[in-house]
Each structure stands twice: as structure tokens, then as C-alpha cells.
């Protein structure tokens, strides 16, 4: 006699029974999704998928964090002295051509 699966088990199964294929299609579009390059219809479809697939939702969260870390990464600043030294070096090389 077939056993009836409980609802939690059933949800976990369907999350992954929608198949990796759908997840993979979504993964290909995630940067475009983050950058607002997709049509409203495709965005809705992706949101629907994300709501039902914790894997893709987590993947998107970490990709979004990656982009925001890149956007906020600090960069060293040139000192006034070094700025002046480099200017002199460039002009010297320009004259020596």
C-alpha cells in the first residue's frame, strides 16, 4: 500500500521536483534580474520561482551581496606628494619623446 507523504516532505520534494532545469534557467538570468534588464513578465516569473525555491532564493541573495560588496569596496587614495611626483614624471616623459 502506498504511503501518503506528509506535507513538509511533499514541499521539499516539489521544491526539487520542479527540476534543476528551471533553476538553471533562472540562474542564467539573475544578473539581468538584479540590474533591472528583464521585462515585467519575466521578472514576475522569476519572483514566482524564487518564492517556491529556497535554493534559488539563497543563490540570488549571495549574488546580490557580491555585487553590493564590489560597489562598496574601498580603494587606496593617492597622497598629494605622490600626485605631484607622478605629474612631474609624466611631463618629463612627454618632453623626452
Amino acid at each position, binding site marked *: 500500500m502506498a504511503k501518503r507523504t506528509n506535507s513538509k516532505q511533499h514541499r521539499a520534494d516539489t521544491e*526539487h521536483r520542479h527540476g534543476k532545469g528551471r*533553476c*538553471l534557467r533562472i*540562474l*542564467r538570468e*539573475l*544578473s*539581468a534580474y538584479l*540590474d533591472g*534588464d528583464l521585462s515585467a513578465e519575466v521578472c514576475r516569473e522569476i519572483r514566482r520561482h524564487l518564492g517556491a525555491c*529556497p*535554493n*534559488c532564493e*539563497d*543563490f540570488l*541573495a*549571495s*549574488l546580490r*551581496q*557580491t*555585487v*553590493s*560588496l*564590489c*560597489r*562598496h*569596496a*574601498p*580603494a*587606496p*587614495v*593617492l597622497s598629494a606628494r*605622490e*600626485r605631484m611626483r*607622478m*605629474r612631474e*614624471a*609624466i*611631463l618629463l*616623459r*612627454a*618632453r*623626452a*619623446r
Partner: protein
Amino acid sequence: MASSSSSKPADGHPPQTSAARENFDRLYRDHVDLMYRFANRLCGETEAAKDLVQETFLNAYRGFKDFRGDAQVSTWLYTIASRACLRMRRKRKGAPERELSLDEFIPTHDGEFRLQIPMEGLTPEEALHNKELRQALEAAINKLPKKYKMVLVLRDMEGLSAKEVGSIMGLNERAVKSRLHRARLFVRRELSARGLAHERDGHHRVSRGTRAGA
């Protein structure tokens, strides 16, 4: 004082007109910080970045008369710097050049889907106070093959549009977006894999209480 273009300088060097010098000084003053930041991100170390800035402004100085003004000056400088970087990097040791395939970023099991970057509710600015995370980000970017790295730096770090990045690199927007997606996936994997390794080693994740670099 700079001599005029018709005078013959005593030292035998080509003359620098005062107009050219003024143009250069303005260009340098207004853009050197921008170019230094860009060069640091591309080169990953300060000495190479200084070389690249000098090369960029030298080429700009020589080519200023050819600048038609139909692009922004900054876009023109980014273009010069990117080309100079490609030339310079051939002589340097960098990340090996290879194509990044989407397939290599496709998770093969649930754990890979769910890799997390150790930020735990912090803003990016707060998270980047942590020296380890900052260094991991720099290392991940430096591991990118250069054509992917350039797109990521220009788009996600310098904040240019895909169209501007395309015009700087001589690519169409579709190619820019494709490279950008691969570059982001690469950096994501590098960062989140490090987070996972930390957890495995029993270290704490980055949190407000463990901001080592703060």
C-alpha cells in the same frame, strides 16, 4: 615657462605649448584620483597602478589633440587606461587567461546553491571593515581572467553603464552583460566558498563582534 610651438627649445626636446600644458594640468587635476582608483582595482597593487596611471596620462597628453569630445573625458581616459592595462599585463604575471563557462558555476548539489557570503545582516560598508572579507574580495577579483575583471571593475566598481563599458572595451552590450554575469558568479563562488571553509574550521562568521579590521 612653457615655450610656444614655434620656438626651438635649447635642450632639443619637443616644445610643450602653454595651451597643451594647461589642458594637461586640468585633465590631470580633475581625473588623476579617478584613474588611480581604477588602476588599483585593475592591477591589484599600488606600484603597478602608479605605472598604469602614468602610462594613461602620457598617452592622453600625446593624444589630446585627437580627442573629439563626442565622449565624456572620463570615458576616454578609461579607454586609454584599459588598453594600456592590456598591453602592460601581457608583460606581467596575472591570472591565466581563459574563458569562464556558465556551466562551471552551475551548482551540482543543494549545498552549492545555498553557499552564503559571511555578512550576517551587516551593510556592505560594515562588512568590508573586516580585513579578511576585504582581502578575500580583492583576491577573488584578482583571480578573474582580465577580460572578465575589466567588465566587473568598470560596471560594478566604477559604476558605468553596460553601454559605456561596451564602448570602452569595444564590445556590444550583450557581450558585456554576459561577461559581467560570469564574473559575478566567479566572485560569488570564491567569497561564499571561503565563508563555508571558515565555518568548517570552526571560526566565527563575520559579525559586529568580530570585525578584525575595524
